[in-house]
């Protein structure tokens, strides 16, 4: 118990950094995934191929490999995810602007990896819209864009919310890997440091860190249950 109480400040700052990482990566992966989903349903074959290739690659490669590639590989090409130094945003997320290891790279890798799963969740939502809806829209003379904008996407969104939520929950848990690769100061780095370097007992530290992750995932899961239940009644 002492291991938790004495290091409460470390846990708190670790939690805060993990939370920031997850928030930014979630936004990034939603953007990337949406673009990929649009590519995958577009009428142009080359764009479809790009979308499919992206999803196939990143769904089948372990996050570990993606993370190694981005964090240790890309710097060899001089890429340090500097496009994430967005002016103004680094006021809210100070780690975006400074060179303490890997925060930007971690966001980049996590968003790149999760984007593929977001794309699949969105596409499953689009597939869940009964074919008759799009057919009827076509029969009324709506164009491809109007069809998507007014008929298919509003319904697809409803079907995609719950899978999207599960993807984000998985992403939050996946974010733990970067602490073991040298990202300074997040929950899992704190966890490793407390157990390995400081020799704190493993069980209480494990439970404390797990609670830290549960604080993020459980409310999201409850929200999803709620949405699912409301939808079941609505139908």
């Amino acid at each position, binding site marked *: 118990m002492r291991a938790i109480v004495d290091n409460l400040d470390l846990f708190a700052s670790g939690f805060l950094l993990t939370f920031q990482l997850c928030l930014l990566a979630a936004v990034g992966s939603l953007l990337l995934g949406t673009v990929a989903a649009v590519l995958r349903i577009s009428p142009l074959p080359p764009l479809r191929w790009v979308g499919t290739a992206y999803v196939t690659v990143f769904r*089948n*490669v*372990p996050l570990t*490999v993606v993370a*190694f590639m981005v964090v240790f590989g890309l710097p060899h090409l001089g890429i340090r995810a500097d496009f994430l130094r967005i002016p103004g945003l680094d006021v809210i997320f100070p780690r975006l602007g400074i060179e303490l290891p890997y925060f930007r790279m971690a966001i980049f890798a996590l968003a790149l990896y999760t984007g593929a799963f977001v794309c699949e969740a969105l596409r499953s939502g689009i597939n869940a819209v009964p074919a008759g809806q799009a057919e009827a829209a076509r029969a009324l003379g709506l164009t491809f864009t109007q069809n998507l904008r007014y008929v298919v996407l509003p319904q697809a969104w409803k079907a995609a919310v719950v899978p999207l939520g599960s993807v984000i929950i998985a992403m939050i848990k996946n974010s733990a890997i970067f602490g073991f690769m040298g990202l300074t100061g997040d929950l899992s780095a704190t966890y490793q440091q407390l157990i390995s370097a400081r020799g704190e007992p493993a069980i209480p530290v*494990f439970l404390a860190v*797990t609670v830290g*992750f549960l604080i993020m995932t459980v409310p999201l899961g409850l929200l999803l249950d709620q949405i699912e239940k409301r939808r079941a009644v609505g139908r």
Partner: protein
Amino acid sequence: MSQQTVLYDIPGPRTRRITAVVSVLAGLLLVWVGYRFVYQPLADAGQLSMEKWGPLIDPNHELFPQVWRRLGQGLRATLLAAVFAILFSLLFGTLLAVIRMQLHALRQRRFPGLPAPMAWGLRGTTLGLNVITRVFVEVFRGAPVVITIFFVWRVLPQLGLRPPDLNLFGLPLPSLMWSLVIGLMLYNGVVIGEILRSGMQGLPRGQTEAAYAIGLTPNQTVLRILLPQAYRIMLPALISQLVVVLKDTALGFIITYGEVMRTANLLAEHRLLRNPLQFYLLVGLLFIVVNYLLSKLAEYTERRIARGRRAATVRPPRVPTQAGGEEAEPAATGATTGDQRG
């Protein structure tokens, strides 16, 4: 593919021409993007030279045999850990699902034949066990699997339970591998257990009632009636969970287990090689091939199961009526016909 024709009309000659032209243009643009943002940076940094790639792809290179021998060992370590993790996860998950089903059923029993203190004691124990298993599930499902693996690796020696270094027919099964396997088992076993449990609870109530009616005990009901059906329904979900297990074995690097990713990383840092990008790309490719095959297997199984079920469904007798007759049908048959149409 069917969805493609729904969002827009089947293109006529003019649209086809436009599509072809725009496709070619988009293709050219993509080629340019690939050249500018992938090829050029790689070439500028000297990452495409044979000096960097040679040890990996040129069989005549002096380091080629050594590199691939090490990579082969790493791959073997990955696959061994994956096989054991999958087996243990399935066993553990099944066990957990059965126990939780039993405890759930026990909670409704009041033990009327026993004296009051004993009955209360038994009910308290059941409740306690219910709570404990529930907390266990929530903790290990909620903790990131990396955190669990590291925890297992650290906590087992502290408890005096360091896994042994084994050797099975010349295959090395080191202590580190068991730590990884146990960590993966805890997480994936819990997930698989919940998949199976929800599969069993999703079965029609009639299955349980019929089993009780012909005199099976709750134990037999779960093992012989519910579990086999849950496996069948949940097979696609189970196979995709296996892909997850295989991918997660790459997390062994955090506990210094010599799986393929760690091996590649160590090799890439070697003084004679120094080519991390190339090694990462290669390992990524290896994983893509294996996992792509596994997910194709999952899709195939899903189709097989769907086909089997559709054939087995007894078609509801359809009374020929005039238009609007379909709405008069009960909701249940409406759902099955909808399924067949879709």
